[in-house]
């Protein structure tokens, strides 16, 4: 037995991987799951500030991998949520500092103590992406409803499916229902039709994401924001609960049809 290693990736940069990792970590921990979030974006550390834990870093991922720190010493425990932990990225190194094998070993060790090991992958399809998906049991693809993001996601899905892993699942981020209604943004059904993978959840565009990131206080710590509620529903689905999809984009019943189609 042991926990699940879940890698959050996207191909294209800036679509919300770090935001999703932080909020899913928070939402899972709030539901009593033991969670560790690993910032795998070596050289471009960010998960620490999004979680508001940047002042507590002593050791990092590379210190642990190279044996300068014990695993326990590298983990930062979140004081707001006793079940939530962060293993921060090294800031002064680059992606060549870690190999696929080392990440697999590290995640195997963490799996013994945690229910969820969430890996925040760097953008791209090079080394950093490869060592991030190497240990994954499940891969979550974050996409925004835009041409470039969907195209890059398709490439990443192809790369993940070429490996022997369970098929990746999709998070559509920054959805704007009013633009979809005006025919100015790809609807959920369009994105699912093009990518043909299972939908895990839809997160709306939400100003609360920006203000919460300003403060290092992830939206999922509370229930009142639309994005926070969306991340909580995704966390519940990750825990195996059957949570109905909300018709965010009003695509005339298609959304329901697709979510049923891709439900296993």
């Amino acid at each position: 037995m042991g926990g699940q290693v879940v890698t959050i990736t996207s191909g294209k940069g800036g679509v919300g991987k770090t935001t999703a990792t932080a909020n899913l970590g928070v939402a899972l921990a709030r539901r009593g799951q033991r969670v560790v979030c690993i910032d795998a974006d070596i050289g471009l550390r960010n998960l620490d500030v999004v979680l508001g834990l940047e002042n507590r870093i002593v050791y990092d991922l590379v210190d642990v991998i190279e044996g300068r720190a014990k695993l326990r010493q590298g983990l930062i425990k979140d004081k707001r949520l006793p079940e939530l932990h962060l293993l921060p990225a090294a800031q002064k190194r680059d992606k060549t500092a870690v190999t696929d094998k080392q990440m697999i070993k590290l995640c195997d060790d963490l799996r013994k103590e945690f229910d969820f090991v969430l890996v925040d992958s760097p953008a791209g399809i090079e080394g950093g992406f490869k060592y991030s998906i190497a240990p994954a049991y499940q891969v979550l693809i974050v996409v925004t409803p835009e041409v470039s993001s969907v195209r890059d996601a398709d490439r990443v899905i192809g790369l993940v499916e070429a490996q022997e892993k369970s098929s990746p699942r999709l998070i559509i981020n920054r959805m704007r229902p009013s633009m979809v209604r005006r025919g100015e943004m790809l609807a959920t059904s369009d994105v699912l039709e093009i990518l043909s993978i299972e939908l895990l959840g839809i997160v709306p565009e939400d100003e609360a994401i920006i203000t919460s990131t300003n403060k290092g206080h992830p939206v999922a710590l509370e229930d009142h924001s639309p994005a926070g509620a969306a991340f909580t529903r995704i966390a519940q689905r990750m825990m195996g609960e059957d949570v109905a999809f909300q018709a965010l984009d009003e695509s005339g019943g298609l959304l329901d049809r697709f979510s049923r189609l891709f439900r296993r």
Partner: protein
Amino acid sequence: MNFLERIFGRAASSSDSAESAKLRLQMALAHDRADISPQTLDTMRDEIVGVVSKYVDIDRENVQVTVSRIADVHHVVTNVPVLRTHPTRAKPSPRRATRPAQTKS
């Protein structure tokens, strides 16, 4: 107006930009996934239109040829909306057939 012109013509108008995003993505992904160029896709589309319209009246403007990934296999998927079956070549049908004919290869 051919398929490519329709797509890029649509891209210029912002009113249904989601539709042109979808069409442009489908073209780009046909290329990314199966190495089929937009020109080849366009030629394939014209030939399919030629063959199918010998037997049934079709809505030529809305014929779609895309490449989908189903499990690990790429499929060339053609959607041909049928207006009505051709009276002289096919058995007459009491109702107007409006559902798109779908062929997978």
